């Protein structure tokens, strides 16, 4: 009850060694044990390296099939990734519009210009207000006269029909905050009407949020598709290497040893698909980039297209690699036990 090989596959059995044939690498002494341990680690590392390289070589040996699988994965990933980038762009673009969101507060006709100025100053001091801008009745009339060209009509009127106006710019343009500010102002005695004219901004926000959720669901579905594509690819790979698996098991290969090359294959497929999907998204962005630049130039906006982002360039392929690994794991645990020397 003494010897037990260090490391993997610890078994409950403690073999007695009475064999006249020298068992491989089983010597006494701490140093020997340590060096055996190091050998083992080294050979484990080498097998990982070989499995990884072997998986790549096998993929290269069947370029058409490999390209097909990689492309399917890439497209499945490029869809949600591309739409996500577009959504980020939409959010970035509308963030500027939020800054212009404001309330037009029309005052009662009997509020004179001094009162109006005082009111504007008071409101500006509020925590939820960034700034205010007063438009007196006279200013409003002058502006209207200039813009509308109805000067003669206005001259014919006995009174200035335009109410005093204060534009209130909120600190936070979130729809909820705007609504709260609006009702607070509406409640004041001097106020005739606080008008919030940003319904379309709210709708846009709601739409972006909805789109985000749809993309979330889409991402989930397509990630599943990637896993299934890899499961199928690995299943075929396992099938085509049936004999090899049997032989490896016969000469004492552990499940881990048999599994390893397939796990690497799955990982590489995912990684390659992820990298290609990044390229696809960037190409798509370049393609739609110039019309957007024209559009923003037309609207005098400083906004320009946001790319996929450096972090995502790394994260997307790694995430895809993990999906591939997951698919390979599923395929291997489902199909490897079907292949047993018993079936010889």
């Amino acid at each position: 009850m003494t010897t037990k090989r260090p490391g993997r596959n610890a078994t409950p059995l403690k073999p007695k060694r009475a064999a006249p044939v020298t068992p491989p690498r089983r010597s006494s002494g701490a140093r020997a044990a340590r060096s055996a341990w190091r050998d083992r680690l080294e050979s484990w590392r080498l097998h990982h390296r070989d499995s990884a390289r072997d998986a790549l070589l096998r993929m290269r040996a069947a370029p058409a099939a490999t390209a097909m699988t990689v492309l399917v994965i890439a497209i499945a990933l490029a869809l949600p990734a591309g739409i996500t980038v577009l959504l980020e762009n939409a959010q970035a673009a509308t963030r500027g519009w939020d800054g212009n969101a404001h309330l037009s507060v029309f005052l009662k006709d009997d509020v004179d210009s001094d009162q109006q100025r005082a009111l504007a100053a008071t409101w500006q001091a509020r925590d939820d207000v960034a700034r205010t801008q007063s438009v007196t009745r006279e200013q409003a009339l002058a502006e209207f006269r200039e813009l509308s060209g109805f000067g003669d009509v206005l001259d014919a009127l006995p009174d200035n029909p335009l109410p005093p106006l204060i534009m209130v710019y909120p600190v936070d343009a979130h729809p909820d905050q705007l609504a709260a500010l609006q009702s607070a102002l509406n409640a004041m005695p001097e106020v005739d009407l606080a008008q919030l004219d940003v319904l379309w901004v709210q709708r846009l926000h709601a739409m972006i949020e909805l789109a985000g959720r749809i993309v979330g669901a889409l991402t989930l579905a397509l990630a599943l598709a990637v896993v299934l594509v890899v499961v199928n690819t690995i299943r075929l790979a396992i099938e085509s290497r049936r004999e090899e698996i049997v032989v490896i098991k016969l000469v004492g290969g552990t499940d881990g040893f048999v599994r390893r090359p397939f796990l690497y294959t799955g990982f590489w497929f995912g990684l390659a698909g992820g990298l290609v999907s990044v390229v696809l998204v960037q190409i798509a962005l370049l393609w739609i980039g110039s019309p957007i630049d024209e559009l923003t130039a037309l609207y005098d906006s400083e906004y320009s297209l946001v790319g996929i982002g450096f972090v995502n360039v790394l994260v997307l392929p790694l995430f895809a690699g993990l999906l591939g690994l997951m698919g390979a794991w599923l395929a291997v645990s489902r199909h490897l036990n079907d292949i047993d020397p018993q079936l010889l």
Partner: protein
Amino acid sequence: MIQLDRVSKRYSSPGMGSKDALKQVSLTLPAGELTFLTGHSGAGKSTLLKLIMMIERPTAGEILVDGIPLNRVGRSGIPLVRRRIGMVHQNHQLLFDRSVYDNVALPLVIAGFPRADIGKRVRAALDKVGLLSKEKLNPMMLSGGEQQRVGIARAVVNKPPLLLADEPTGNLDPELSAEIMDLFKDFARVGVAVMIATHDLSLIARYSHRLLTLREGHLVADRDETPV
């Protein structure tokens, strides 16, 4: 080295009934001895070897391999048992997608031998079977006898205490069979427990080794050192 204690194996497949391939077989194989296992086709020879290799599990009875009670070995322990057994198959079970060298090296790579050791051991094994010059070839380019010798080299490359062979001379002419037999004798001489399953009675007749005979799954004769 190997002990079987009242081992029985029943194959049962749904719808096809069941078949008792081995019935209450008890035997002991000591180290350093070559034993023939014979019997008619279907007598249970391969089944016996498969039980020792843990390719199949016995229905009843106990098997000890190198001191290990196989009944107590779980799925994850099977590889370690197999690494103690070299097995030569009738159809070699060689891999044709790699060289002779890589075929022979496989058990060492699997067992995690240092790379430097692997080269030495593989060449020693190939030298032993007289195929050192063919290490770079694909086994497909070898004759049947040479392929069988590659299979033997792979079986002994990690110096297992136990060597099993299932009809190792099945497809070979008498001269080649004699060469193969000489190899097995050499391994027994250095202390390996060797068991050769064969129904080739003319082969057995030429040697004076222990002979176990199966009939319908029963061990019916255990002849020791019968003269030629």
